């Protein structure tokens, strides 16, 4: 695990978010250090996805602070978060359906290039090798010319992760990266994620239901329940925590 030196990369204090009368987040405190792989687990309705959505800018918190490297980001929009190096994937895979696999990856490169408003087709052509290299890295180059609509769910999740990587983030927010995937695909994807995270020394926050995946990948685990942090610790500590076993692991 990464050393906890200096200040946290992302720091959350007293974060609350209500939908009407339902309190999805009721005062979340969270610190994630650079280079850490942090899993967020918890029963349905614990507020995991809401938390990820606030961290990614998809939702604005009601009260409380979200800080990235000490900078307050309350109310930032997703594209502003992306510009600050926060990349995310969604629970339901989110790609550009009427584009090919190649074009999807090209779009990510195009966005990262900061020349997205250019009218020069040469800029697009010039990205070809880098795009193909990134597709190679996520093992999708053989599907480059396939419309995304035609590829499998697992490949789409893989593509989405690859696109996020291409935008050169420092912090990755993955909301159930392996949801709906088969056992085999699931471990392949998580291996890919861990490999890339370590190679690029990224920080990763991910929500996951598959306990095997969580214990395999996470440096630290945060357990959420009823909109707040219920427990936090090393995987061994969490596995040994009787309260956690009761609410979540079912006496495992």
């Amino acid at each position, binding site marked *: 695990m990464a050393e906890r030196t200096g200040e946290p990369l992302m720091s959350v204090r007293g974060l609350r978010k209500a939908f009407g009368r339902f309190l999805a987040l009721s005062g979340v405190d969270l610190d994630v250090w650079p280079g850490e792989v942090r899993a967020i687990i918890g029963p349905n309705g614990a507020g995991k996805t809401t938390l990820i959505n606030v961290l*990614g*800018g*998809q939702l604005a918190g009601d009260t409380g602070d979200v800080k990235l490297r000490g900078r307050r980001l309350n109310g930032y*929009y*997703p*594209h*502003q978060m*992306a*510009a600050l190096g926060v*990349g*995310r*994937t*969604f629970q339901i895979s*989110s*790609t*550009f*359906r*009427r*584009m*090919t696999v*190649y*074009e999807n990856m*090209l*779009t*990510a490169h*195009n*966005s*990262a*290039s900061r*020349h*997205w*408003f*250019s*009218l*020069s*087709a040469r*800029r*697009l*052509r010039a990205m070809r090798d880098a795009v193909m290299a990134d597709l190679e890295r996520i093992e999708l180059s053989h599907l*480059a*010319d*396939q*419309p995304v*609509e*035609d590829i499998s769910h697992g490949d789409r999740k893989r593509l*989405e992760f690859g*696109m*996020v990587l291409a*935008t050169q983030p420092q912090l990755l927010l993955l909301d159930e990266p392996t949801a709906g995937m088969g056992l085999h695909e699931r471990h392949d994807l998580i291996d890919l994620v861990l490999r890339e995270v370590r190679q690029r020394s990224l920080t990763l926050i991910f929500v996951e239901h598959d306990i095997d995946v969580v214990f395999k990948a996470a440096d630290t685990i945060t357990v959420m329940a009823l909109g707040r942090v219920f427990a936090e610790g090393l995987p061994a500590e969490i596995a040994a925590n009787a309260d956690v076993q009761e609410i979540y692991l079912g006496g495992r």
Partner: protein
Amino acid sequence: MTERDATMAGAVASQATALRDPYRIHWRLTALVVAVTAVALLTLPPLVVFTLTEVMIFALFASGLNLLLSYSGIVSFGHALYFGIAAYGMAIAIARFGWPMWLGILLGPFTSALFALVFGFLCVQLTAIYAAMLTLACAEVVYAVVFQWFDFTGGDSGISGYVPSMLGLSPGVYGVVVLGVVTAGMLFLWRVVHSPLGLTIRAVGQNPARAAAIGHGRKRVQLIAFVLSGFVCGIAGTLFGVFQGNVFPDYVGVLITVDGLVMVLLGGLYSFAAGIYGALLYKVLDNLISHYFQYWQLVIGLILMAVILLSPSGISGMVQRLLSLGRGGRDG
């Protein structure tokens, strides 16, 4: 043909195009179409030439609208505004403010771009059907103003005589002028769609949440698309105003909006050439059938229903499939 077949054909076609550089301008095809059209314009009788000229003008208008419909994710129910207001900008500059004719003509498209900037800014604050309703409301407001501000816009009798119809040229020669401008406009649109900006616009149009998560703010990108679309539709409107030598409130009215929408749907949503195919079919049917049959719009309606039910990708989808069959599909 099923949707599955269409996707397969699309996949084969896209494989072929990826190898052949999808961003290049098809100069030889463009030159061929332009040459054939020019010869037709200069040799065929005036009635046909008028129809062809109208087809070209509306092809550009529909293609400008198509930039929004197929790529940016905005549905505009008021796009005649950006067509007609260009003609008004030109007519008012010349007739009311005494601008030289050429300057007035140049002003036309920029009038549309300015209106698109203002109304577009309002419309992109909303999404989906709410944005679409606002585009309609904006167009209705402008229509009402144009219709009622008699002293300035001429009210329902419009403005005429500000420029000689077709610049005083023969129908064929004016047709060639239109051909040149429309070709330039289409090449500009092609350049936009097949550029980093075009890719950004498509990304935002297809999946705003994903686009935002990789760094594209929706509003600014959609506003750029809106202004570009308005500008191109303004070029078409200016050509139309010069063609007719007058301008009426109908130019910004809902019928022209619907014409544009129908053309894009006929031509095929999500296809670059939708506006060309759609305008050609629609205007030719309009000019042919309306001579013999009072209820030609009934025919158009039936054709539109048939296209939507049988080939949701419109005429361009059919053409794509035919072309890929011709190349010997790889689906065995």
